[in-house]
């Protein structure tokens, strides 16, 4: 057994790319060690690390060589291998010679001559020399670049390669750069060359040269430092995973610096201060125990300490400059009301064929009014886009909606109104919170369905991976809101929502363009399926498909109830009865004409008379339970019909010559089938029957 380690020294790799690259590398290296013959066990011998400038991996124990393996080699056809007297032909002799085998080695049977050949395992060094460059060079990065002569494409230019196997340099080449057993320390603090002999040696020497190779350790060091600095500033740094995951890949030698901004900026809305710090400056605000922002904040430092206070000065300088701009924008914006900005929206285009934001606002108002008659909600609908022409939103686009909400609050508008404006972009992605009020949910729905209806009307629906207007996310947001059942819930079906939005477009554009209702429904159906499958409910694909077949567009919560019942029933023994009954009915009635209604005079046997008497009882019961939304009980009631149906199928011939009788029986069976079809098309459920035995 030997150890191998590798380092790729590059120019600074974007912080957000490290995690995915490490995961890919880990997966490929694990496969490599398995191919090398490392028996899989709990201790993964692969360690992957990275810093802004380095990709590092360590294989703690690999066999010195692959084990030998045997392989079968196919030769000439048996017919051609022996002559009439049964002696080996030239063809056979040649084949044997080539494979270093004798006639005794030939494996009996088959149409072709075959012999076994032993393949000597290659040394670990040979394999690493072949595979490591492949793995590294083929790593896919989200945005590649070329440099120098422009021959190679990679995330950033490569400077040096370390490749050491069992204490010795193992020569490899990455993009024409030959490896060595030498690296460099921190770019400015310890840039000297360093010889490295083993992984431990490497880790220790780099640490002395101001490089901590483990990202988690860099994060821990910074987190501890941040905590102490926060305490000194009389507060706690915001918990912010996205900042931490960036910081740990922005430093080789982890540190944090505390800086101050001018207290006069504390009068700006918190959201603005926090956005400037977090999004624009990658800094962490510090809050007091009661949640107030302090004028101190933290910034990342690629050094253990800011000895001369330079970084504190620089960070304060740049943050004050940003805040000065923000304050100017804020004060300029506050000189006019949101209401007065409605006319500004006429000059702000939404989409060439869909008009300006004033047009969009009119549609949002109309759609909201069809969902809600609450005055506060409708006030929010009217003003929700008026922050777009503000200086603040032009500068901090991520704050759209929020800025409008803040200004509405400062203007003294009702809480329900300003919160709805503030929240109406939510949820922008699957992990986002929903708007905090029902009013917010209504505005969000209206805004999103207006966008969807508009783009579908002009034929700009997403194709493949192309979705420049984020229509999938808009549809997803609508689905998320409609699935919600708490006090914010909006009880409207997607079909109705689409109808309202298309009507709003039609009315305000005066254009008779084709109505893309079916396209929109299909688009939504796809989103509903995706979201339900990925959701915490744990629904299976076929359960969702079966229930959606019985309808989904009029109520998503009802759909969820039906899938839930289906899922619960699925684990019970009589589920097979439901399934078998439904499938038999579906098979036999498929493509057949049936009578408009069941005619008792056409019955011929007692069995079918008995069934016919039971069916309306069952059907009524099922309907009643569906009315009460007790879908599980409804399904159980249906299941209870199974023995009767079985007798019916055993004793009654459905496909008889007499058309009247046949159609009558079809009608009877359809009545039974239809009872359950209101909940789900259970024939879409795929079952493994073994699960139901025992």
């Amino acid at each position, binding site marked *: 057994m030997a150890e191998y380690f590798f380092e790729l020294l590059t*120019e*600074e790799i*974007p*912080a*957000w790319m490290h995690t995915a690259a490490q995961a890919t590398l880990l997966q490929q290296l694990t496969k490599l060690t398995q191919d090398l013959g490392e028996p899989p066990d709990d201790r993964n011998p692969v360690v992957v690390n990275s810093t*802004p400038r380095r990709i590092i991996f360590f294989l703690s124990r690999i066999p010195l060589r692959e084990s030998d393996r045997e392989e079968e080699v196919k030769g000439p056809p048996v017919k051609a291998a022996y002559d009439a007297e049964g002696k080996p032909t030239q063809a056979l002799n040649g084949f044997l010679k080539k494979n270093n085998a004798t006639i005794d080695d030939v494996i009996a049977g088959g149409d072709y001559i075959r012999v076994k050949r032993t393949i000597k395992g290659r040394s670990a060094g040979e394999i690493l020399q072949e595979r490591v460059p492949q793995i590294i060079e083929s790593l896919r990065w989200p*945005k590649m*670049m*070329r*440099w*120098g*002569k*422009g*021959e190679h494409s990679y995330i950033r*230019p490569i*400077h040096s390669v370390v490749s050491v196997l069992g204490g010795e340099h193992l020569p490899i080449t990455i993009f024409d750069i030959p490896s060595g057993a030498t690296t460099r320390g921190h*770019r*400015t*603090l310890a840039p000297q060359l360093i010889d490295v002999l083993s992984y431990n040696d490497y880790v220790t020497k780099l640490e002395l040269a101001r490089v901590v190779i483990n990202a988690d350790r860099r994060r821990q060091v910074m987190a501890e430092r941040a905590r102490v600095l926060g305490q000194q500033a009389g507060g706690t740094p915001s918990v912010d995973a996205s900042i931490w995951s960036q910081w740990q890949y*922005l*430093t080789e030698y982890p540190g944090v*610096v505390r*800086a101050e901004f001018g207290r006069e900026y504390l009068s700006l809305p918190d959201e603005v201060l926090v956005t400037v710090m977090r999004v624009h*400056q*990658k800094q962490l605000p510090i809050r007091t125990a009661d949640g107030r922002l302090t004028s101190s904040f933290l*910034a*990342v*430092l*690629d*050094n253990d300490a*800011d*000895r*001369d206070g*330079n*970084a504190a*000065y*620089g*960070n304060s*300088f*740049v943050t*004050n*400059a940003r805040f*000065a*701009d923000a304050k*100017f924008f804020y004060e300029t914006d506050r000189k006019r009301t949101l209401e007065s900005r409605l006319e500004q929206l006429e*000059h*702000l*285009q939404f989409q*060439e064929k869909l008009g300006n934001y004033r047009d969009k606002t009119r549609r949002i108002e109309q759609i909201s009014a069809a969902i809600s008659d609450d005055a506060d909600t409708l006030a929010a609908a009217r003003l929700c886009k008026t922050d777009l022409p503000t200086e603040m939103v032009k500068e901090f686009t991520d704050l759209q909606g929020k800025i409008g909400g803040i200004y509405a609050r400062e203007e003294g508008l009702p809480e329900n109104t300003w919160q709805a404006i503030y929240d109406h972009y939510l949820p922008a992605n699957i992990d986002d919170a929903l708007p905090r009020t029902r009013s917010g949910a209504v505005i969000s729905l209206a805004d999103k369905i207006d966008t969807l209806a508009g783009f579908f009307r002009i034929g700009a629906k997403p194709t493949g991976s192309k979705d420049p207007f984020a229509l999938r996310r808009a549809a997803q947001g609508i689905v998320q809101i409609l699935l919600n059942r708490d006090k914010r819930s909006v009880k409207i079906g997607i079909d109705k929502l689409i109808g309202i939005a298309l009507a709003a477009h039609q009315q305000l554009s005066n254009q008779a363009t084709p109505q893309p209702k079916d396209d929109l429904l299909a688009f939504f159906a796809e989103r509903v399926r995706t979201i339900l499958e990925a959701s915490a409910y744990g629904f299976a694909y076929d359960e969702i498909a079966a229930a959606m077949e019985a309808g989904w567009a009029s109520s998503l919560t009802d759909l969820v109830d039906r899938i839930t019942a289906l899922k619960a029933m699925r684990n019970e023994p009589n589920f097979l009865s439901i399934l078998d009954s439904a499938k038999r009915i579906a098979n036999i009635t498929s493509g057949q004409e049936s009578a408009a209604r069941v005619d008792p005079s056409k019955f011929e046997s007692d069995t079918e008379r008995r069934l016919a008497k039971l069916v309306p009882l069952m059907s009524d019961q099922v309907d009643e339970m569906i009315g009460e939304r007790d879908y599980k009980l409804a399904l159980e009631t249906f299941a209870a019909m199974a023995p009767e149906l079985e007798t019916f199928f055993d004793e009654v011939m459905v496909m008889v010559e007499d058309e009247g009788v046949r159609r009558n029986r079809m009608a009877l069976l359809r009545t039974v089938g239809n009872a359950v079809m209101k909940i789900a098309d259970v024939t879409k459920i795929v079952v493994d029957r073994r699960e139901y035995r025992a």
Partner: protein
Amino acid sequence: MPRLAFQDLILRLQNFWAERGCMIETPLDLEVGAGTMHPATFLRVLGPEPWNVGYVQPSRRPADGRYGDNPFRLGKHYQFQVILKPSPLDVQELYLDSLRALGLDLTRHDIRFEEDNWESPTLGAWGVGWQILLDGMEITQFTYFQQAGGIDLAPISAEITYGLERLTMFLSRQPSVYDIEWGAGFGYGPVRKQDEYEFSKYYFEVANVALHWNLFEEYEKEARSCLEAKLVLPAYDWTLKCSHVFNTLDARGAVSVTERVGIIKRVRELAVACAHQYLASREALGFPLLKASNG
């Protein structure tokens, strides 16, 4: 901490890069938004000819004007631009040495290279690189050019753009750009504040919109005639003029969103045509700088 004046930075950077094999070019004598638009960058990065150059470029961004009121924002600022083609492998080290030449002890400061890619829709150009942060403040844009005028580049040029006012403010610990010293005892404020005010007022309030629309049309026509006459360098001059007229109209609030997209597209078409014609013209000349460097 070195207390450098604005002109000290210019002089030191020029000397530094001249010593490292750069030709020192002079600023383009037209209004441009950035040093990248100087033909010494936009055209020279095309094709196989080597090119190492450094120059100051006054950069006009009408919409950034603040009437001389904002201590950080200027309608015209000065960039020091360096192009190294092909990009040498030690280009980052060279850059750090240039900071050392300004008197910075980099063991006492925080230097970070954070991803920041560059794209210019009007030039049909993009590149990959970083913003370089000194103690948390952006002082330089660093870009490996990948495409210009819609043409894939090889060799690749490294572009280093220093923001000279920012850097001087920071090095001299001045909280306002108007407080820095230009040189020889002249202050940046007394020298520049009047033109910041006047040009802000002009671009935001006074510029004749009809005239500028007309200029745009005429400049564009002229660029096209030059292209037809196979005079790519004059054609490029007129393209830059179109670009500045557009920036003026934009600052004046005279460009709607729809118009904006259309105008950018028209300027890009000119820039792309210039890039292609320039490359062809250099090829016709047998890529003179290639021979010079070989000889």
